[in-house]
């Protein structure tokens, strides 16, 4: 009775496992192209007005922290906009008529976070320039000028 040598059987088993692993790991990796991320901007009106609206769903989990840090209990969406974040280019995010954000991506860290420069303009006048490291789904808030009985707050987020 002839049987294959043990190391022959082992190497065949290893080949099958490697093939299976490469198929399972390789196909999804190849099937998912890396699209350019979208950056979403949202101008909020923060106030203590009881009749005010609600935060959009993507920001709703930050309500408590915004309330604690800004001192307002109600947040209403005033304007919002979206743009693609193309690396190596200047990307304009227009939020409402006057608020514009110039976004420049400096690439991604090895943990998948985006390093970018944001220049916020109010009616053509530069307000603030900032460099930030953000990941998808983490909004950066900028508290702006007073407006009506409250304040304008800009949220900028790379969408997940």
């Amino acid at each position: 009775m002839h049987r294959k040598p043990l190391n022959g059987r082992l190497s065949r088993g290893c080949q099958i496992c490697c093939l299976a692993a490469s198929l399972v790991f390789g196909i999804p990796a190849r099937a998912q192209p890396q699209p350019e991320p979208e950056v979403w901007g949202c101008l909020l009106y923060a106030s203590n007005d009881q009749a005010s609206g609600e935060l959009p769903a993507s920001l709703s989990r930050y309500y408590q922290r915004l309330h604690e840090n800004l001192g307002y209990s109600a947040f209403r969406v005033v304007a919002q906009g979206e743009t693609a974040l193309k690396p190596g280019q200047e990307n304009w995010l227009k939020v409402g008529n006057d608020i514009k954000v110039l976004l420049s991506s400096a690439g991604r860290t090895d943990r998948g976070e985006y390093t970018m420069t944001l220049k916020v303009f109010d009616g053509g006048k530069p307000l603030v320039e900032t460099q930030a490291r953000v990941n998808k789904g983490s909004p950066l808030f900028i508290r702006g000028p007073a407006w009506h009985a409250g304040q304008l707050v800009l949220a900028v987020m790379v969408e997940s």
Partner: protein
Amino acid sequence: MKTFEEKFTAWLDGNLRGEDLRSFENDSMRSEKEEFHKLKNLLRENLKGCEMEHPDFFNSQVMAQIERERASGLRRVRTWFGVPRFAWGGVFALVIGSALFFTIIPRSQMRDPRSDYVAEVLKAKTADPNIKATVDNQKDITIIKLENLDKATPEKAKKSDH
């Protein structure tokens, strides 16, 4: 050249000749030889091969056992679900399971959304020296607070939803 053990054995058997034989001929060696012969005779007298009863039956039983083992060995090889195949099947299932776990299950949704919040302001500066930018970097929220801004006019922020 013979070793001492070879010469000694040859001497005990009476096969040593010449100079080698003379080197062994002394009283102590002779008494050794006598002891050896006594032991040899004793063993010869007492250790006798025993005759097996029904030797054909015994041989047939041994042969039947060999045949049974050979047949069971063949069955083991031909069986699809052998132990090695089960082992490799387990390894294969483990690899597939791990691969699916890491590639298909969206683990980010299983975590607390606040735990992976990253919005770190590295630098913030204002164009107008009268406007002050304060960065409030917290664990689960980051706010840049601009101060000394003029109050926005009521028509400033007009709605232009996407």
